């Protein structure tokens, strides 16, 4: 599967802590993005989960590669792109902090907040984005365990290949598990969001081309055994797929001409590989 990237943007507590270590030591709470582009009355309903997702989506759509060089057109192009682009949203757990709270209230026989309820569905984040941006295009929302991020890429590829769209915005987001579920953690816990714009063909804005493939995991029992061992020692747990992807992509981009190894990520079900394709500069 060949995907062409026009832009990519990520936010994670790993990066946020690096950028602002003292702040983190004091409060242990990341400073969530401000989201100036969202009107205040809509912004007040955005959870941290929604905020980091929309932050990366907005950055991906306003990346320099996405815009013409002329300053005059820049302002009008962002809303246009954001209103017309198809969206694939993916998250392994969704806004679990919100749903866990709602479920706790329900189990205690309390009335739940209409606001929280109305934004608790899996596709709430791209839905909010579509309202803010007046986007009436098709949106898919995906959840597929540890493979959620890569399945978003597969879904994007399928939609591009079908010819129904030639450009897509992919948004992936996950947060650390709420306290209530922390004992079930089977990955390193990182708040993170990744957004990227992908196309079916190379365009003048293409910044990278990625060849992605996956196989069924043939040795599931071995994988599970490794995981059980890892659970006892938290440091051995793997990073979430989207974070692995970003680390690989950043390293590959930094290395410029040096050929870096392909990314390999294995979940319980699949082994995914991504390879950066270079030398495709012809438009």
């Amino acid at each position, binding site marked *: 599967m060949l995907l062409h990237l026009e832009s990519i943007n990520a936010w994670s507590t790993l990066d946020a802590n690096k950028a602002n270590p003292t702040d983190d030591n004091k409060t242990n709470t990341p400073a969530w993005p401000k989201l100036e582009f969202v009107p205040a*009355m809509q912004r007040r309903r955005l959870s941290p989960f929604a905020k980091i997702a929309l932050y990366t989506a907005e950055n991906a759509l306003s990346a320099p590669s996405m815009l013409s060089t002329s300053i005059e057109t820049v302002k009008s192009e962002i809303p246009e792109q954001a209103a017309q682009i198809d969206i694939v949203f993916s998250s392994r757990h969704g806004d679990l902090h919100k749903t866990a709270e709602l479920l706790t209230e329900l189990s205690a026989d309390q009335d739940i907040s209409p606001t929280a309820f109305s934004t608790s569905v899996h596709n709430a984040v791209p839905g909010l984005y579509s309202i803010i941006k007046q986007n009436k295009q098709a949106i898919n929302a995906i959840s597929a365990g540890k493979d959620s991020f890569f399945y978003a890429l597969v879904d994007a590829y399928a939609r591009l290949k079908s010819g129904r769209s030639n450009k897509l915005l992919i948004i992936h987001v996950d947060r650390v598990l709420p306290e209530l579920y922390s004992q079930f953690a089977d990955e390193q816990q990182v708040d993170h969001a990744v957004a990227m714009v992908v196309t079916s063909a190379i365009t003048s804005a293409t910044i990278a081309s990625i060849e992605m493939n996956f196989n069924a995991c043939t040795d599931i029992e071995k994988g599970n055994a490794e995981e059980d061992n890892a659970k006892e020692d938290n440091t051995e747990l793997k990073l979430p797929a989207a974070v692995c992807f970003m680390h690989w992509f950043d390293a590959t981009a930094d290395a410029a001409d040096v050929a870096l190894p392909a990314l390999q990520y294995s979940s319980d079900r699949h082994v995914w590989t991504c390879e950066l394709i270079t030398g495709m500069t012809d438009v």
Partner: protein
Amino acid sequence: MTELKTELKQLIIAELDLEDITVADINDADALFVEGLGLDSIDALELGLILKKHYNIKIDANSEEIKQHFSSINALSAFITQTRTTA
């Protein structure tokens, strides 16, 4: 009465996540919905929940009068006071 109004404003700000608004920003006679404070239909549901949780007042969603009771802080506090005395 003034105490109740201040309390209502504090509750509205806290429960509806009005980040940039303070008690002093809300005038007693100003519209709460659409104009004035600019609240919407989800806020109306949330406000109904506030009344139930904090004042034990159950709202009849089909009542025509509810619109009037929710129109301003003045109307809301009058409604709460009235319901309390008749209950």
